[in-house]
């Protein structure tokens, strides 16, 4: 009987739920072609939550959000704000970001 109850509870409970207390984090670096961009504003928007940071002297960044799931990263560079959809997981994820110029507009890509 106990085994049956346990089996039912296993089926009903999703196998890998994300605990609400965990914070999602993305980290990595930002560059334009081969040049790493220092002191560049980078923003992570997950739902209503917006987290902002600036890349360090080596072009690296680290952004933590309370939520996980689909989010948007936006970079402010030379009066343009290219953005990219990202997924924030329960564990920190590395994002190597590159700004590419396309028809006079900057595009943000993950490589």
């Amino acid at each position: 009987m106990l085994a049956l109850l346990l089996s039912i509870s296993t089926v009903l409970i999703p196998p890998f739920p994300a605990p609400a207390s965990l914070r999602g984090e993305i980290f990595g670096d930002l560059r334009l072609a081969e040049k790493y961009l220092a002191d560049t504003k980078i923003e992570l928007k997950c739902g209503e939550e917006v987290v902002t940071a600036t890349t360090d002297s080596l072009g690296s960044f680290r952004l933590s959000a309370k939520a996980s799931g689909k989010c948007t990263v936006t970079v402010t560079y030379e009066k343009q704000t290219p953005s990219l959809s990202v997924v924030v997981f329960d564990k920190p994820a590395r994002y190597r970001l590159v700004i590419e110029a396309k028809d006079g507009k900057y595009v943000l890509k993950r490589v």
Partner: protein
Amino acid sequence: MAPLQNERPKDFWDKLHVLLSPLGGLLTAIAVASLGFIGSRTVERQQSNEAKLRLYSELMTRREESEATLRKEMFQSIIGSFFDTQSASLDSRLLKMELLAQNFHEALDLQPLFKHIRREFTLAPIPAAAKRDYESRLSDLAREVTRKQMIVLEAGGRRFDHTVILSDSLLDGTKSEQLEDVTLSLDGIERRFRVSLFKADTAQRELRVGLEIETPDQPGVPPTQAGRYSVEFDVGFFSTPMIDNTRLSGDQRVALVLTDMNQAGASVSLLYFPGSRASLREKPYYEEILRKLADTVTAQ
């Protein structure tokens, strides 16, 4: 007695000849002795270097042998206990799995064992919280192994990270999605990779993917090896890139790695690396060995 008609007084050159004749002999003797000395020194140095090399290779061989013996005994002990009828607790089985994965991930395809252990956790009559804890430990272990392998493969090859946003059609498997084409170059061979996603299973944390590889005609690539072909497979946390990879021409490999996944999306890394970095159990084809030997000779 009359003096000889053709006898003439000795000039400077005659005197020099008389003086230098014995000196020449002396110099020849010194030259021969020096040559012998230098020759014997060279031979001695060469022999000493050879002895050092022999000693080094002997030490390396012995170290390899002792390590292989230790690993063999360790492997037999751990793998034997997995199939022991006197089944141990889940905790102890997970510990054995951790030992196996951390020590033999480069030589062994652990995916069947990972899946077997996961099935055992699913069927075990234990509370759901404990079940989740075990499953989390198991997937963390698999990801740790993958992370280690990725560091090695990335050091010798190329990597490209894709972000996958999971749509309803992808979760249902009703519509496929194509990721951005990636062109990477390794050891002078340029290839284009196209990843297509057919289905995402967030419960099992698996993706059904298609990988298309195109090798354009280029210098250094035989025309028979240029072209396009595609493969389709599942990639999950238990797929390790050193073992679960696609063999390419020119002794190269490509692997897809699922680095993370949740309900919203996934992170998939493409690794393009030389065959020398692949698993220890993978052997290069004979024609590839011969071609590499020929290339080395040409380079010399």
